[in-house]
């Protein structure tokens, strides 16, 4: 059974493209990451899944039922956290949670208190007094309080500090072990690698890759930041590493996007006399730019 599926789901806003022919199938009990840079159609897809938008063509199904436009009982087993969480400013966090709780029969006070405790939020403050991060915490708790079978998150980690983000992912993993399916959009690769079983990449409104996380295109890419101890290496030597550029804000520093296998990369770097070296994972934007932009290719001349 699929917790969520789309069949050639398409949405146009007038003549503007939202998403085109998006096919997704999230199995029951799966954690699925939906990744892509900002503005490529992630939120549009989620809003179509929630019935907040109507598809131009195609279908969206949740628990094997077509998504209705006007909401309804289908969402009894669904929890949703938007990217930007907004509530009634005159309410307290606890008021919002009680309001949300009133829509469901599942869930219990003990679970709500546990979530409040684990996400470290004071629920008795007015919504207007909360920071973006604290509003997000209330948003997460209201989405989880009825122990949903399907969780839909739009950028779950945004606005949360690293410790709380860690705790959130622990909670999600626990819920997944109890059978919950999780679909979340993000532009942070680390979040996907941490908990997802499968991912889909979306670009310009279309799915360009779908599969297990370990087969994510660009995973082999590394971002190398370096500074030579003595004279700079030749442009050719640098371009053997990958796409290189000078960092305008840091004179003498180079940044190279490399797709070399790890041992080759280390071997190449060992030939240089380096004062500074940092190797990091690429951001999603860097992967997209280097894999999918028309101008992308192999090495480049940093002095060009």
């Amino acid at each position, binding site marked *: 059974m699929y917790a969520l599926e789309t069949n050639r789901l398409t949405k146009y*806003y007038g003549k503007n493209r939202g998403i085109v022919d998006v096919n997704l199938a999230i199995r029951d009990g799966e954690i699925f990451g939906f990744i892509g840079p900002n503005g490529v159609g992630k*939120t*549009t897809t989620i*809003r179509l899944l*929630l*019935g*907040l*938008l*109507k598809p131009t063509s195609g279908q969206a199904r949740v628990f094997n039922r077509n998504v*209705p*436009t*006007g*909401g*309804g*009982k*289908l*969402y*009894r087993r*669904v929890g*949703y956290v*938007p*990217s*930007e969480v*907004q*509530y*009634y*400013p*005159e*309410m307290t966090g606890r008021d*919002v949670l009680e*309001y*949300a709780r*009133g*829509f*469901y029969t599942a869930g219990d006070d003990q679970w709500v208190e546990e979530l409040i405790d684990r996400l470290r939020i004071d629920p008795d403050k007015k919504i207007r007094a909360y920071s973006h991060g604290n509003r997000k915490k209330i948003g997460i708790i*209201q989405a989880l309080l009825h122990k949903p079978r399907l969780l839909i998150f739009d950028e779950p980690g945004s606005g949360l500090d690293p410790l709380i983000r860690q705790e959130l992912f622990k909670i999600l993993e626990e819920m997944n072990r109890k059978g919950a399916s999780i679909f979340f959009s993000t532009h942070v690769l680390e979040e996907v690698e941490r908990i997802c079983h499968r991912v889909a990449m979306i670009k310009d409104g279309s799915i360009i890759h779908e599969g297990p996380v370990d087969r994510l295109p660009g995973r082999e890419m590394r971002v190398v930041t370096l500074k030579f101890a003595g004279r700079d290496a030749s442009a050719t030597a640098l371009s053997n590493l990958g796409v290189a550029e000078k960092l305008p804000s840091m004179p003498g520093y180079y940044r190279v996007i490399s797709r070399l296998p790890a041992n080759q990369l280390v071997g190449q770097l060992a030939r240089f006399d380096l004062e500074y070296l940092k190797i990091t994972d690429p951001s999603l934007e860097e992967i997209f730019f280097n894999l999918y932009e028309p101008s992308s290719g192999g090495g480049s001349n940093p002095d060009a």
Partner: protein
Amino acid sequence: MPNGNIIITEISLNQRSLLIWAAVLILVILIYLGSFGFMEEIDFVEMIEGFPEPLVSGLGMSPEMFGDVNQYHGGLVMLYGLLLASIYAMMLAGGMISREVDLGTVEFIYTRPVTRTAIVISKALSFVVLITILWIAAYLVSVAIGIFWVAPGVFDPNAQFTAHLAGYLASLAAGGIAFALAPLFDRIQGTTSLAIALGFAFFILNGLAQMYGQLEFFNYLSIHYYADMAGAAAGEPFVAGMAVLPAVFIAGVVVSAILLNRREFPA
């Protein structure tokens, strides 16, 4: 089909505005109705007889009003009472719908296991509760002032009940119109402006229809005509008109549900 959770929350969210508007309405009743004796003393009838007749009619006045507390209250005081109540009713109803888009809470409310139709009906029911409280307060204050202070033994609570009932139904109708139009607005400011504009439009259309016979058809566009609070206070309620008002409210709620069910909420 209505959702008790939404009804209770909407009442709670709007109780402060109810208190403010009820206080203003009560103050208007207190000042106007309390001035009845003063109007008699300064021989207001002679004064307005000097005014052009269309102007007097347009302001909802007649010389008889100033000799009869029931007509004075039902026909004049509550004319302004209804102006206030209808503006509040439209602000309240419009705000209940447009607030969700304005605050960005559509993602909270419209992703719950409740249909949009049920959400509109629940909001409409909480609106009815709030407006009922407003008019009960207005009626009780009017009766208290009329019976115990201004005109003991003359002030007729039964005729005033009918007049207030007509005003109450007109407020519901005003709210229904706002419910119908609110899905077209994304800002509370928009529905507030609409409420003030329509509230005065109803009042002015009614006034113009009274002033000039040729403009009588304007009456049909105003909730004041259907309420006819002056007639109700005089013991001659416009029953057919009063029956139209709840129908307008129900039609407005239905239109609101239809529009909301068709509406999309992009990010």
